[in-house]
């Protein structure tokens, strides 16, 4: 079942001679339980694609549907509710609210959706534990390291009934072990039935995806899926040195 569908999506910024064609007819489907990585050079349209998928931007032409809902046909209010309930975002700027504690940052979307305060906080504390931040519930963002803040942002993106998780360089400035832990979390959320889109420059991070889509100049130029028999790789002559 497809959670995210982009159908012949174009996005043009500006008009006339100075118009920039960020995306030129991108068609992409991401199913439940599938993680798709998007790679490409700077300016290839990766972030535009992610913003359109998350309903943060509208296509100039074509359609974007999340969980069967065409975003362009939604009212503002319906779109806001969909974004809050169905979509989790992990973007480069973490957007943690400085005046709220770690647990409050995580439980906020649940509370906005009417989940009782106590239950929302309980879920937030459990989500903090999932990202190895037990005991950090009452810390404010400026009392945590960049890596810890990143993990709070991940916990916030993965909490609740999110059907679609969108991540833009989610491992940012993290060291390789913490970065790997973040990708394992994203992977397990997707394995649990969500759909995920991961934008990254880093091939080692993209490799956690089921499919890797290469964008160039706003067009998908290639797609890499996994082999059928991973174990064969180890027996291959190229697998040893």
């Amino acid at each position, binding site marked *: 079942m497809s959670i995210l569908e982009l159908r012949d999506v174009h996005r043009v910024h500006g008009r006339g001679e100075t118009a920039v064609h960020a995306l030129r007819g991108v068609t992409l489907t991401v199913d439940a339980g599938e993680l798709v990585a998007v790679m490409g050079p700077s300016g290839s349209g990766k972030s535009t694609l992610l913003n359109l998928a998350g309903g943060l931007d509208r296509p100039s032409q074509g359609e974007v549907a999340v969980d069967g809902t065409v975003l362009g046909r939604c009212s503002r209010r319906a779109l806001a509710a969909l974004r809050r309930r169905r979509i989790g975002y992990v973007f480069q700027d973490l957007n943690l609210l400085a005046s709220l504690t770690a647990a409050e940052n995580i439980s906020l979307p649940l509370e906005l959706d009417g989940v009782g305060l106590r239950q929302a906080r309980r879920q937030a504390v459990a989500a903090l534990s999932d990202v190895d931040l037990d005991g950090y519930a009452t810390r404010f963002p400026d009392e945590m390291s960049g890596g810890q803040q990143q993990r709070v942002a991940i916990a916030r993106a993965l909490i609740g009934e999110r059907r679609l998780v969108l991540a833009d360089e989610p491992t940012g400035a993290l060291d390789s072990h913490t970065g790997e832990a973040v990708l394992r979390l994203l992977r397990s959320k997707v394995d649990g039935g969500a759909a995920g889109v991961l934008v990254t420059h880093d*091939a080692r991070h993209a490799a956690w995806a089921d499919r890797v889509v290469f964008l160039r100049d706003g067009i998908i130029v*290639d797609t890499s899926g*996994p082999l059928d028999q991973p174990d064969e790789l180890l027996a291959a002559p190229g*697998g040893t040195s």
Partner: protein
Amino acid sequence: MSVKHGILALLERGPMYGYQLRVAFEESTGGTWPLNIGQVYTTLSRLERDELVRPLPESEAGQRPYEITDAGRADLAVWFATPVGWTDRPRDELAIKLALALTTPGVDVRAVVQTQRTATMRTLQEYTRLKARIHQPTDLSWNLVLDAMLFRAEAEVRWLDHCEASLVRYSPPVASLAQAVPDETAAAPDRFAPHAEVEVSPR
């Protein structure tokens, strides 16, 4: 790396017979380097000839364990202390292929780069899938062998990204193009960029 030093390293843990060595070797490389038992015995007999190992009495089950000698220990210490030289590695076929693609008329270099990147990415995905199966980092040896392969594949993708960016910026020398084909407007795009957006004509 040689099987010889692998076996010496394993014998440093204590005496072992052929089959045990084979199993331990494969375990410590996470199965990435399968050995057949014949290779193990051939290597053991060479090591015995060079007095780096010595055979012990056969067990009741007819298995003959070997132990490492002092000379073997010294040889192993030298091996661990010596960095692996780049010249010992096979030539980089991919780099040579790209260099040739760039100078061979009619070859779509960006397509060569993309085909390789997709293939390497797929390899990287598969290594990652194997890594994802390891939930507890209890088997550090296997984890590190896998990481080595991951980092190597990642480096190749980064290099391919760099190649692509260089191709986009590249302006072929005017003189050589003019000599090769008088009509340069027809020749340049054919050689370097089938993708219409990329400007390759000399500026």
